[in-house]
C-alpha cells in the first residue's frame, strides 16, 4: 500500500517539489564560485596572453554537466538508488582501478585522472557518493537494534577497498573524507557512544601507523610538519598557507571588492582558483562575505540533515546524513586549511573550487538528497496522504 502510494507521488510531478532551499543555496554558491574563479584566474591568463575568461568558461561547462546530472539523479527514486548501489559501487571500484593502470594519467605528481572527453574524470570524486550509498545499504539490516561489531567490521572493510585505491593515487585528503563519512554514518546507524569512542581511537591509531610506517609521500609529510611548525620554511612547504592567510587578512572586514584583490590579482596564493578559492572570496568580499558563505554552507548541511530526518526509510536517512557529513567535512577541512588551522590536504571547496569531476560528484550527491526529499515519508496532514 505505502509502496504504491509513493509510486503515485512520484508519478505526480506537481506534488514532487525539489528542495528549493537546498537547490537555491547550491545555485548561489555555484554562481559565486564562477565569479571567484574568474577573479582568481583572469589576471594570470591575461598576463600570458590567454583568454582571461578561459578557466571560468571551462567551469561553466562543468556546471552545465553537473546540473544535468543533478536533475537526472533527482528523478531516480531512492529505492531505485538502493537497487543499483552494488552496480555503482562495482563501477566506481573499476574506475579507481583504471586510474592506476596505463589508462590513468598523472597530474602534478598524482595519478588520479582518466581522460574522458571534455574533462579528465577523477573517479575518487564519484567514489564519495558511491561509498555513501554502499555504506547505507550495509548499515540498513532488517531486525537489528544498534550496530553490531561484526557490521562495523563489514563497513570498515567496504570502505577500505576504495580508500586503499585512493591512497595509492595518492590522495590523502579524500581518504580522510571516507573516514569521516564512515564514522558519521555509523553514528547515525545507531552505534553506542562506547563503540564510537573505540572507533575514533582506532582511527587515530591508523593515522599514526600510516605516518610511522612511512606510507605518506614526502610532500604530504612535509605539509603536516610544516603545519605543525608554521614559519619554518616560508618559501616552500608553508608558502601556500602563509600566503593564504596574508591574502585572507588583506580582505579585512569588508573586503577589497570584487576583482580588486591585490593578492589574488597578483597570484600570490598557489591554486587560488581550485583548492584555495576561499582566499579569493575572503580577500575580495571580506569577513562579511566569507561569513555569509559559511552560513550558507551551514544552512545547506542542516537542510540535508533535515532531509535525513524526513526520509522514508533508514537507507535514505543514512544516505542523506552521509552526504551532509561529506559536505561538512569538505568545507571544514578546506576552509580550515586556508585559515592555517589544518594542514594542506588538497580537498576542494564544494560548488566553488574549479574542477569538473568534483563538481559532478557534488551535483550527483545533491541530486540524490533531492531525490530522497522528493520521495520522503508522508507527513501527517499532508494533502498527498489524503488522496490515498
Amino acid at each position: 500500500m505505502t509502496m504504491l502510494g509513493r509510486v503515485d507521488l512520484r508519478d505526480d510531478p506537481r506534488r514532487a517539489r525539489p528542495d528549493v532551499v537546498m537547490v537555491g543555496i547550491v545555485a548561489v554558491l555555484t554562481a559565486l564560485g564562477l565569479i571567484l574563479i574568474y577573479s582568481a584566474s583572469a589576471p594570470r591568463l591575461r598576463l600570458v596572453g590567454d583568454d582571461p575568461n578561459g578557466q571560468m568558461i571551462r567551469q561553466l561547462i562543468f556546471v552545465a554537466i553537473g546540473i544535468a546530472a543533478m536533475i537526472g539523479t533527482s528523478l531516480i527514486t531512492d529505492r531505485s538508488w538502493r537497487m543499483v548501489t552494488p552496480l555503482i559501487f562495482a563501477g566506481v571500484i573499476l574506475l579507481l582501478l583504471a586510474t592506476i593502470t596505463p589508462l590513468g594519467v598523472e597530474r602534478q605528481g598524482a595519478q588520479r585522472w582518466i581522460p574522458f572527453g571534455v574533462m579528465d574524470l577523477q573517479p575518487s570524486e564519484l567514489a564519495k557518493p558511491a561509498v555513501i550509498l554502499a555504506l547505507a545499504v550495509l548499515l540498513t539490516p532488517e531486525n537489528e537494534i544498534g550496530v553490531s561489531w561484526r557490521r562495523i567490521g563489514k563497513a570498515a572493510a567496504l570502505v577500505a577497498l576504495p580508500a586503499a585505491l585512493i591512497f595509492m593515487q595518492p590522495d590523502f585528503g579524500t581518504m580522510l573524507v571516507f573516514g569521516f563519512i564512515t564514522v558519521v554514518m555509523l553514528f547515525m546507524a545507531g552505534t553506542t557512544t562506547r563503540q564510537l569512542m573505540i572507533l575514533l581511537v582506532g582511527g587515530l591509531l591508523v593515522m599514526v601507523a600510516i605516518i610511522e610506517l612511512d606510507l605518506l609521500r614526502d610532500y604530504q609529510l612535509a605539509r603536516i610538519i610544516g603545519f605543525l611548525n608554521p614559519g619554518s620554511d616560508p618559501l616552500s612547504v608553508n608558502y601556500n598557507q602563509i600566503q593564504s592567510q596574508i591574502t585572507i587578512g588583506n580582505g579585512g572586514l569588508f573586503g577589497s571588492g570584487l576583482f580588486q584583490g591585490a593578492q589574488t590579482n597578483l597570484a600570490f596564493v598557489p591554486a587560488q582558483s581550485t583548492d584555495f578559492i576561499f582566499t579569493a572570496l575572503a580577500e575580495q568580499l571580506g569577513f562579511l562575505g566569507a561569513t555569509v558563505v559559511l552560513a550558507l554552507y551551514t544552512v545547506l548541511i542542516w537542510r540535508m540533515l533535515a532531509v535525513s530526518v524526513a526520509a522514508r526509510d533508514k537507507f535514505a536517512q543514512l544516505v542523506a546524513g552521509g552526504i551532509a557529513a561529506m559536505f561538512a567535512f569538505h568545507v571544514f577541512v578546506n576552509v580550515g586549511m586556508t585559515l592555517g588551522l589544518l594542514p594542506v590536504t588538497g580537498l576542494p571547496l564544494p560548488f566553488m573550487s574549479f574542477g569538473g569531476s568534483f563538481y559532478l560528484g557534488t551535483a550527483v550527491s545533491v541530486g540524490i538528497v533531492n531525490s530522497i526529499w522528493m520521495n520522503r515519508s508522508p507527513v501527517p496532514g499532508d494533502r498527498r496522504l489524503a488522496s490515498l
Partner: protein
Amino acid sequence: MIASWRQTTVGTLVTAMMVVLLLRLWYLQVTDVEDSLEVAAAQQIRTVSIEAPRGDIFDRDGRFLMAGTIASMRVVVDRQLISLEEEESVLIPNLATLLAIPAAEIVAEFELRGSGARFPIGGEVSNSTALFVLENIGHFPGVSVEPVPVRVYPLTETAAHVIGYIGAPGSSDLEAGASPSDRVGKFGIERSYEEYLAGTPGAITYRVNAHGDILGVLEERPPQPGGSLITTLDLTLQRVTEETLTQAIALARQVGEDEVIRAAAVILDVTDGSVLAMASVPAFDPSAFSTGRISVDDWEAMQEKAVQNNFAIQGRYPPGSSFKTIVYALARQHSIAPVNEEEHEGRVDASDPTSYFCDGQLEFEATPLLNDWKPGGHGLVNLGQSLHQSCNLYYWSIALRIWEQRAELGEDRLQQWARLLGFGSQTGIDLPFEADGLVPDRTWFQRHQQQQTGVVRPEGGWAAGDVMNIATGQGALVVTPLQMAVAYAALVNGGTVWEPRVVQSVRDSQNNVIYTHVASAAGTIEISEDTIADLKRDLNGVVNSTFGTARRAFEGFCDTGVPDSECAALREVGGKTGTAEIRQALGEDGPDIDTAWFVGVAPLSSPRYVVAVVIDQGGSGGLVAAPAARRIFQYLMGETPDPLRRGDDTER
C-alpha cells in the same frame, strides 16, 4: 528509522566546526589585519636601484681629464628574480658559454655580490649578443642587457695620481651606506670629491606578482648624475711635466744613477695656491681599477714600485740644499749673519755683515772636519753668493749663529720659520693621503731618540749640529715636493702660505656651479719687499751667474741662437738646486744614493709659477733635477722646451 537526535547531534557538531572557522576568520581579517596588510604590500613591490652616472673631471680650460661615463652594453643579472636552482642549473652554465668566462669565476662573482644583488657581469657585449640573450631569455633567467655606465680614462696615465681611481667600497664606505656593488672613489680627486662625483642613485619601484613578473611601474626616480669637477690643472702643462719627468729618469740613468726610482713634480700658482700640474712618474692607468679586474701580477708589480702612490704629496724626502732658500730668507729678513772662523776674520769684507770666507772645511766640536761638497770651498761669499753656489759652510755658520744666540732668538728659530712656511704638517690640499713631513726639534728628538735609532742619534742631546743639519736640509728633516712648492710660493708672493687646491669648482648635471673654491691661506709669514727682491735676484743667480749650481743646466734657455746674455726669459727664472743625502737613513755603510731637487720660481718680475721637481735617487740636483725644471720653465716662459741634457754635478 533513525532517532532524530542523532541528526541534531551531527548538525550541532557541524555548526560548532563552522564557528571555529569564523573565529579564526575574525582573527585574520579583523584582529590581525594590520600585519597581513603590511606583509602583502611589501611583497607586491620590488625596487631596483639605478646607478647614477659619475661626474666628469676637466682641466682648467674645460678639457676632459677623463672622458666621463660611457654607457656600455652589459649583461646584468638580478638575483632577486631567480632561484638558486635556476642559477646553478641554467643561468651560470649558459652565461659561462655566452660570455666565455669560466663558470667558477661567475660563481665567485655571484658570491661576492651577495644574494639578491643586481650587477653587471662580463665585459661589453655586442648588439648581436644582446639580441641573442633577449630572444633566448628562457635560457637566461633574471638577465637583462642594459647600458651600464663605465668610467673611462682616455688619457690613461696622464694626471692619474691627481684624478685617482674608483673601486669596490671598503668597510668604512660600507658603514657610510655604500652597497657592495657600488664603486667608490679610492684615490685622488675620485676619493676626495666622492660626495660631488657620486651623484644619487635612482630607483624604479615595480609592482610584481608572485612569479616576479613586472606588472607595472609604481614609481620611477631617475638617478641624479654626479657633479663635474673643474680642476686647476693645465692639461698641456701636465703633459709637459710628465714627459719631462720621464726624460729626467732616463737622464739619471744616463749619468750613471742606476738606482733612480721615480720622479715627482708640482707646479703651483703662487698667486692663489692652485696646482697647475702635479705628477708622479711612473704612473698607472686608472681604468685598470674601474673596468674589469686588475690581474694579481699587475697589482703586485704596481705595489712593488708603489706606482699608485702620489709622491708629489706622499713622498717624504730630505730637501737638501733646496732648503737653503728657506734659511736664506730667515737670515735676510732677520739679519742673522754667519759666524766666521777666527782664522778667516781678516779676509771678510768688513762692510758686509753677510760676508763669509769659505775654505771648504769646518772644524766643529768633537766631530771630524765637516767638508763642503766643493773641495777647497767657495772662497769669499756673501749671502747671495752662498745661495748661488750652495755653500754648505755658510749655512752651517748661520745655524751656529742661531745656536749661539739661542737665548735671544730661541733655539728653534729656524724650525719655527719652517713651520710657518708649512713644513712639518699637511698643506691641506684636497687630495687624500698627504704626508706630514717632519721638522725636528729638541722635543721631537727626545721623544724619538729611544725609538728610532736608525734616524735619531742614539746618544747625546739636541745640539748645534742638529740645527746645522736642518740648515742644509739634512738630518731628520723631511718634506714633500708640495710643501716645498708652497713654501717657495710664500717666500716670493709676499708671505701667503696657501692651502693648495686641485679643484676650483664643481658643476651639477644642469651645469649650475654648486661649489667654488676660494683661495685660502693656511697662514702668513712676515717678509719684507727687500728680502723678496734679494731672494729673487739670488735665485736667478743660481741659474744665471757664473758659479751658479744650475748654471750649466739653464745654459741656452732661450731659443737657438739667442745668447744667454740676451735671453730675457732667463732673467725671469730662478731657483735652487738640492742634493739630499739619504746615506744616513740607509745606514753608514749604505750606498751613496742622493735625491735630486730643484725648486724654482718664474717670472721673477711678477711671480706666478713655482716648480718643484724631485728625482728620487736621481743623484745631484744640478745634474739631473735642474735640467728637468729648466724644460718645464722653458714651456712656462714660452720658449721651446729642449730635450733634457745634463747639468753640473754639484752638492755632493
